[in-house]
């Protein structure tokens, strides 16, 4: 099962196994990892599951397509960076085994 590390804004890491087919957001919620709120429940409608994806993982998950709902919602989130993604839009695959995502200062 792919292993994913979530790092809170204060630096606390959480490493968990997330089944293929779940999203990175679901991996956090189902393991009670703080710092990812996911208010809308995975509809790409609130931007409260915002994470930063470090290289080399960013190359594997890619950036949201320009004009997509994810790009639009991210544009309203606070403290975004070029490597920002909404974790509800990243599907877990075997290729993401070992991935690290970092959390922003706050979810809005």
């Amino acid at each position: 099962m792919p292993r994913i590390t979530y790092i809170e804004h204060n630096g606390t890491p959480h490493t968990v196994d997330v089944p293929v087919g779940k999203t990175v957001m679901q991996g956090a919620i189902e393991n009670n990892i703080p710092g990812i709120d996911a208010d809308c429940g995975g509809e790409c409608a609130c931007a409260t599951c915002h994470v930063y994806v470090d290289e080399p993982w960013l190359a594997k998950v890619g950036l949201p397509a320009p004009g997509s709902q994810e790009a639009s919602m991210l544009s309203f989130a606070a403290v975004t960076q070029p490597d920002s993604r909404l974790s509800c839009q990243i599907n877990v695959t075997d290729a993401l085994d070992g991935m690290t995502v970092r959390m922003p200062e706050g979810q809005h």
Partner: protein
Amino acid sequence: MNAPVHIDAATDAQSTPLDQIDVSNPRLYQDDCYFPYFERLRREDPVHYRKGGMYGDFWSVTTFKDIMHVETHPEIYSSEAKLGGITITDRPMEFRRSSFISMDPPRHDDQRKVVSPIVAPANLNNMSSIIRERTARVLDGLPRNETFDWVQDVSIELTTLMLATLFDFPLADRNKLTWWSDRATEDVNSGGIVNSEAKRLEILTEAVQVFTGLWHERAAKPPGYDLISMLAHGEATKNLVNDPAEFLGNLTLLIVGGNDTTRNSMSGGLAALCKHPAEYDKLRANPGLIQSMVPEIIRWVSPIIHMRRTATADAEIGGKQIRKGDKVVMWYVSGNRDEASIDRPNEFIIDRARPRHHLSFGFGVHRCVGNRLAEMQLMILWEEIMKRFPRIELMEEPKRLYSNFIHGITEMKVRIPA
């Protein structure tokens, strides 16, 4: 529950022919008896067309899932002021004022991004100490063993102080903000002061004048961290003051959004605890539950009753054919009680597993800008209440506002036992 004496809402909701149910009637909210109507709609006709209702012809979208669908398709379901904007009331064209909530992308995006940094995480941290100080001062000044109006003395006082800070508005004149806020949303049929759109504009013109003065003051200074300065210096909004209608539209949005909603959550939350003594006991036993209680209060209260959109193309919601030009109303009060999306939705549970899964802030591009500030104000309020008052008693049923848009509590008599 709390049914008024003149109708039995549960019976009426069952016996009224489906096509005659009109959930736009503001009396349903004033009398707090709307639930049975929405229960029936969600069960029998979740996307419901009402022809010739009190507020014209409109679709009611009543389930969580269908509301989410409308929220996330702004390219079909427009918020544009000229098409009717975001409320069920179709104002005469000359009174339809644009603002970033009643605007579609991309203009909406540009204007919204000018003001959204005010609630960025770092700025929220900066604001928390001043909010806590004020909250403590207001609570310490409350009478003991004496009946008083929680709405006036706590909810209005705290949210108006907050709003004055956000605008850097002269504190001594802050009651004007409350006055304009209440007049901006007053239903013209409520029997109140605003009995026509012309009257409303006359009252709000004073707001435009006062804020125009503040605008020119702030524009002449380096950019500051208040909403007026941000608008005056923002690339997308720096000429807003030259368009009085859109200026007023945006002022109204920020004034109402920045105080009235949280005001009613401050009142409604206390009412909910008083009516659910077992939950109040849980809170006393573990004040740490404030973290999950606050979003649950916001769901329970649903401070905004509905948001409206206008279809810009033929479309389908839940199997119903929507026509271009149709008025589509998302009833947040109903979606927040939808048993298909929320576990035990008709129970007030302060330690819910996923309390933020509610519609009160909306979703999609128009999701409430100030949602985390609102939560922070409420969390600080409850933390400070629990430090001081183990119990506050509700002395009579809260009085509610005649409105199908603002879910308002106008008066709430309470007592703090000595």
